[in-house]
């Protein structure tokens, strides 16, 4: 039986899932090391860096651990994790929260100081915030394809939509983003202050 972590590094996702189904923590650890970063980044992007981004990403892996056999196609493991995580984010955003500070995005809007010139980190926060404000499906499509580099086919599988729908969501997301940043457009594209670049 394989017990060395380096041996698991050579294994396919299918082999790792099978080993994980046999309660092999080292095999599951390899799955985590392969996919935790992209899943976390997706959740972070979808939640605008909310405090519970780590918890949501964690839940996707716990669900996998509880029953690895629910992944029908081992080749689509990354997509499965991203789907579970993004569904959790969307469920979270639809859940009514009264007075819960965690619900507030961590990213502040630099527009609160309209007269101050934006530096690079403020511009990043502004754009992160506007991406997070996009409708769920547009934000998810943009996060999967632009930020995580998934192909349109893989993104369509994650979102369970057609490739045409993915392209439409991407186009709408990019257009919405441009419109939402119309006030800062010139400054963002040409006039960022030197500080923090």
């Amino acid at each position, binding site marked *: 039986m394989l017990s060395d972590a380096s041996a698991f590094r050579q294994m396919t996702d299918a082999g790792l899932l*099978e080993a994980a*189904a046999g*309660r092999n*923590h080292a095999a*599951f*650890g390899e799955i*985590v*090391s392969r996919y*935790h*970063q992209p899943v*976390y*980044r997706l959740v*972070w*992007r979808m939640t605008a*860096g909310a405090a519970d981004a*780590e918890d949501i*990403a*964690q839940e996707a*892996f*716990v669900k996998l*651990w*509880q*029953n690895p*056999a*629910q992944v*029908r196609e081992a080749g689509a493991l990354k997509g499965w994790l991203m789907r579970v995580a993004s569904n959790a984010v969307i469920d979270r955003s639809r859940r009514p929260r009264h007075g819960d500070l965690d619900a507030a995005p961590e990213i502040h809007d630099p527009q609160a100081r309209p007269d101050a010139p934006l530096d*690079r980190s403020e*511009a*990043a*926060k502004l*754009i*992160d915030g506007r*991406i997070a404000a996009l409708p769920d499906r547009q934000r998810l499509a943009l996060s999967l*394809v*632009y*930020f995580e*580099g998934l*192909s*349109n086919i893989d993104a369509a599988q994650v979102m369970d939509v057609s490739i045409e729908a*993915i*392209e*439409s969501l*991407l*186009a709408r997301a*990019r*257009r919405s*983003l*441009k419109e939402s*940043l119309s006030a800062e*457009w010139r400054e*963002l*594209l040409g006039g960022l202050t030197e500080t923090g670049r």
Partner: protein
Amino acid sequence: MENGKDTRLDQLLASYGADRARWPEAERMRDGGGNEPAQADAESIDRLLSLASTVSAPADAMSRLMQRIAEEPQGAKVIAFPGGSSPPRSRVFRYAAALPLAASLALGVYLGAMGSLDFMLPTSITGGVALNDEMPDDLGGVGEADAYAEESLT
């Protein structure tokens, strides 16, 4: 292509941006031309997106996750067959088991209604009650309840 303008190229620019490396592989070699405004627009949105934060998970997030996994029990082990799910059966096969049940029910109702099987049943069911003139005055001793109650009082 419409008036020298490639509408698919416009769609690609609007969806994936100006960087052809981000386009679907099969369409990266597509000839451009007549789409300069869309190209410029896509480039500017790409520049905005490139300003977004670069994200990475906290350094100890993975170890926290593995710690949780160590405490988490696994559910029922259901191993999927490698060949995937079995092909769906046709409707005829799906309802095959119900046919004899339905037929026996219909036969039973028919025979019962015709009385054809009454000879097989005990007389107490087929007419015993009706023929019995000596119906009890009371059923289950309920009528004696008052007597018991009076006795207990005296």
